[in-house]
C-alpha cells in the first residue's frame, strides 16, 4: 500500500473537471438505476462511447460514478413502486415497498441511501487496501466452489418465502424449471425453446423481473384504483434517524462484508449479494416476524450489500483482469478503449491509474450521498401521484424497459406473460422473489455442477473434494435448518400475537 501515491491520487480526483464528471455520472446513474429495464450494465455500456478521446481518469471516474449511482438508484423504484430498477434492487422490494405503503417512503429512501453509501464506501476501502489478498481467494474458486456458492444462495429462498415455506419452495422450483429453458451450458443443446431463437439464452431476465414485480402490481392496482386512498407521505429527512441507524449498524457492517466478498467472486454480482445479505439479516434478527412487513434493517441489508459489490467487483477486474460482474465486464471494455489492459500488468505499468480508480470510487460514493440526498424529496413525490396516473405510467415504462434491453418485441411479450403469472401468484399468496433468485442461481448451479463433472469424468465425489466448497455446502444446510426453525418461531409469535388481540 503506497499512501503517498493514494494521497496524490486524491489530488488528481479533486479537480473541477473530474469532480464534474463524477457528479454527472452519479446523476445519470441514479436516473438509469431508477428506471426499470435500464440497468447499471446498460448505463455503463451506453456511456462508454462518450468517453472516446477523453483522458483515462475522467472517463473512468464518470463510469465509476454511474456504477455507484445506478446501484443506489435501483432502490428508488423498488421502494416507491415495487419495481426493482436494477436486478440488484430486487431484495430491497421485500421491506422497502411495505414501508412506502405505510407512508414511510422517506424513511426507507433515506435508509437505502445511507446504507448504499456505507456499503459502497466499505467496498471501495476494502478494494483499496485488500485487493491482492481478496483476489487470491477468488482464484481458489473452481467450478465446484461456484456450484456450492449457488446452492448456498438458493438456501436463502426459505428466508424470503413469506408466510408459507412450502409456497416459497414451489415458487423457487418454478424458477429453477424456468432456468432450464435455453441452450444447455455444456452441450449447447437448445432445451424447451420450441424453435423460438429468442429463448436460446433462456427467458430474458430483465423482462421477467419487470413482469413479475411491476406489471403484476399494475394489474392488482387496476382492480382497486377507485378505492385506493392516496398514501400520505411525509418526507422531512435526508438522513435516517439515529434510532434507525442503531438498529441497522450491525446489519450494514455484515452486508458490506458479504457484498464486497460476493462482488469479488467473478460471475456473482449485486443481486446475489443483496439476497444473501437480506437472508442472513433475517436469520439472525431478534424479530424475524417483522420481516416482510417493513423492517428497516431489511432495506439496509440489501442496499449496503449491492453497493459494496461495486468495490468488490472491481477487485478481480483490476488485479486479475477478470470482471467481477456484468458491469465490470463492460468497464473492462472501457479500460481497453483507453489502451489499458486491467490485470497484473496494470499494477506493474500503470499503478497510478489503479490508485486513481481507488480514489475516484471513494469520491463517487460521497457524490452519491450528496446527490441522492438532494433528490430524495423529489423521488418521494412519485408515490403521491394518483394511482390512476402512476399505474399506466409504470406500464409504459415497463414496456419500454423490456424492449430496450435488446430491441426485441419478444421480450415485451415475455414481460406481459410474467405480469399475469405474477398477478395470480400474488393473489394466491405465493412469494415472487424466490423465482428471481432461482433464475439467477439456477444456471450458475447447473452449469458449474456439470462443468465439475466434465472435469472429474462423471465422478460426483469431486464436489466433496475441496474444503471451501464443503464449507459452503455445510453453511447452506445450516442456514436452511436455521431458517426453517426461525420460520416456526415466527409463526408461533404471530399466532400468539393474534391470539392476544382476539382476547
Amino acid at each position: 500500500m503506497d499512501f503517498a501515491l493514494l494521497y496524490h491520487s486524491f489530488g488528481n480526483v479533486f479537480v473541477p473537471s473530474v469532480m464534474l464528471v463524477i457528479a454527472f455520472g452519479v446523476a445519470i446513474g441514479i436516473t438509469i438505476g431508477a428506471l426499470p429495464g435500464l440497468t447499471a450494465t446498460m448505463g455503463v455500456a451506453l456511456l462508454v462511447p462518450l468517453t472516446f478521446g477523453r483522458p483515462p481518469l475522467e472517463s473512468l471516474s464518470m463510469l465509476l460514478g454511474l456504477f455507484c449511482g445506478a446501484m443506489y438508484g435501483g432502490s428508488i423504484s423498488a421502494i416507491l413502486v415495487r419495481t426493482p430498477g436494477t436486478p440488484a434492487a430486487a431484495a430491497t422490494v421485500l421491506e422497502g415497498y411495505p414501508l412506502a405503503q405505510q407512508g414511510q417512503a422517506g424513511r426507507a429512501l433515506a435508509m437505502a441511501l445511507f446504507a448504499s453509501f456505507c456499503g459502497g464506501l466499505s467496498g471501495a476501502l476494502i478494494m483499496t487496501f485488500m485487493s491482492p489478498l481478496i483476489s487470491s481467494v477468488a482464484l481458489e474458486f473452481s467450478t465446484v466452489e461456484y456450484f456450492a456458492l449457488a446452492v448456498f444462495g438458493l438456501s436463502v429462498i426459505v428466508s424470503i418465502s413469506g408466510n408459507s415455506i412450502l409456497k416459497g419452495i414451489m415458487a423457487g422450483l418454478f424458477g429453477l424449471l424456468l432456468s432450464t429453458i435455453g441452450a444447455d451450458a455444456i452441450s449447447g443443446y437448445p432445451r424447451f425453446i420450441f424453435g423460438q431463437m429468442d429463448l436460446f439464452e433462456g427467458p430474458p431476465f430483465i423482462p421477467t423481473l419487470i413482469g413479475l414485480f411491476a406489471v403484476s402490481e399494475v394489474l392488482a392496482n387496476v382492480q382497486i384504483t377507485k378505492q385506493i386512498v392516496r398514501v400520505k407521505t411525509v418526507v422531512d429527512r435526508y438522513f435516517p434517524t439515529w434510532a434507525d441507524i442503531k438498529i441497522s449498524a450491525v446489519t450494514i457492517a455484515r452486508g458490506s462484508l458479504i457484498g464486497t466478498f460476493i462482488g469479488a467472486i467473478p460471475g456473482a454480482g449485486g443481486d446475489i449479494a443483496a439476497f444473501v445479505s437480506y437472508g442472513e439479516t433475517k436469520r439472525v434478527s431478534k424479530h424475524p416476524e417483522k420481516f416482510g412487513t417493513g423492517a428497516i434493517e431489511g432495506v439496509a441489508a440489501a442496499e449496503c450489500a449491492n453497493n459494496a459489490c461495486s468495490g468488490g467487483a472491481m477487485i478481480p477486474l483490476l488485479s486479475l483482469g477478470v470482471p467481477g460482474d456484468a458491469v465490470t465486464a463492460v468497464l473492462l471494455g472501457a479500460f481497453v478503449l483507453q489502451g489499458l489492459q486491467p490485470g497484473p500488468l496494470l499494477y506493474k505499468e500503470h499503478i497510478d491509474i489503479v490508485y486513481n480508480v481507488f480514489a475516484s470510487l471513494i469520491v463517487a460514493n460521497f457524490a452519491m450521498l450528496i446527490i441522492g440526498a438532494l433528490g430524495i424529496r423529489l423521488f418521494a413525490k412519485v408515490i403521491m401521484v394518483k394511482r390512476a396516473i402512476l399505474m399506466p405510467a409504470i406500464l409504459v415504462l415497463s414496456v419500454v424497459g423490456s424492449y430496450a434491453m435488446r430491441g426485441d418485441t419478444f421480450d415485451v411479450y415475455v414481460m406481459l406473460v410474467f405480469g399475469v403469472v405474477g398477478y395470480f401468484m400474488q393473489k394466491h399468496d405465493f412469494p415472487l422473489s424466490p423465482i428471481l433468485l432461482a433464475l439467477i442461481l439456477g444456471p450458475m448451479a447447473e452449469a458449474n455442477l456439470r462443468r465439475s463433472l466434465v472435469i472429474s469424468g462423471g465422478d460426483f465425489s469431486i464436489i466433496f473434494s475441496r474444503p471451501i466448497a464443503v464449507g459452503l455446502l455445510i453453511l447452506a444446510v445450516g442456514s436452511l435448518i436455521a431458517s426453517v426453525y426461525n420460520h416456526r418461531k415466527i409463526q408461533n409469535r404471530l399466532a400468539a400475537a393474534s391470539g392476544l388481540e382476539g382476547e
Partner: protein
Amino acid sequence: MKRRSVLVGLGAAALIGAVPFSASAAEWPAKPITMICPWSAGGGTDLLLRKLAASLAKETKQTVVVSNNTGGGGAIGHAAIMRAPADGYTIGMITFELNSLPPQGLIPFTWKDFDPIMRINVDAPALTVKADSPMKNLKDFADYAKAHPDDVTIGNSGPGSVWHIAAAMMADELGIKAKYVPFDGAAPAVTALVGGHLTAVSVSVAEVRSQVAGGNLKMLGVMGETRSDLFPDVPTFSEQGVKATFGTWRGIALPKGVPAETRAKIAKALKAAYDDPEFQEFAKNAGLALAYQNDKDFTAFLDKNANDVHRVMLSLGLAKK
C-alpha cells in the same frame, strides 16, 4: 398545447419514416446509417464496431447508429441483418458464429444469404497453460496428455463456440484425448486456468494477453498463419510441425440486393473508415489482429471457413448433419 406539439412531431416522424426512400445511389449516404451488432453493448465486437462506426460517420458526414440485436448466440442479430431493407442504410457486422450456427441446425440460413463487404480481423487461438507448468511446447503438451489421458482439461468459451472447435482441432492434430470444459465466455475459463483448475485453455491471444504479460500464464503455440504481433516470441502450430490454422473472424456484410453502385460506395467508405488512424490505433490497443480482405477474398474465405468448421463440428458431434 405542448402535448399536442409532441403528438404532431411523432406523427411527422412516423410519416417521414413511412415514405419510401427514393433518392438514387449517387446520393448515398443521404440519411443516417444503422449498423447492426449481433452481440451485446460493451463487449469486444460491440466496441470494435462502435469505433468503426465513429470513423464511418467522420468519413460519410452522416450519423451512424449502432443497434445491438442480441440473443440466440448471435442468431438474432445475423437474422436482423439478413432481413434488413437492402437500401444501403443498414449495414451489419457478421462474426464467426454465422458459420458455426448452421451446422448445429440453429439458424436456417448461411453466409451465402449475405453480401460480404470486407473482413476486419482474424484472431487466432493459442494453447495456453500455467506459467509454472514444466511444458514448453506442443510436443511436451502432447506427451503429457498421452501419459495422463484422463487428466487433461481444456477450457473454452462455450459449447459449440469458436474456441471449443479450436480445442477439438488442436487435440485432433496432436493426436491426444482431452476433456473440453465450456465456460460462459472466455474470461471465466482464463480465470479458472490462472487458479489452477484446468490444464489449458484454447481461447484467443487477446483474451490471455494480460495474464501472459503478467507472468501468470504462458502460450505453447499460436494457431494462426503467422505469429502474433503481441507475442512475436511464441511460435505458431505449423512451426512446431502441427499443420493447423484456425481463428475467429469479424467482417461487414449487407443484406442481399443492395444496388451495385451503392454497394461500391459503401465498400469504399468502409475501407476508408478501416484505414482511419484512430480505428487502427484502437484495434492495436485492444490486441486485435486486423486482417482486411476485400469482398472477393472475404467471400472465398467464408466459403472455406464454413466447410472447415462444419467438418470439425461433425467430428465433435456438435453438428446435426
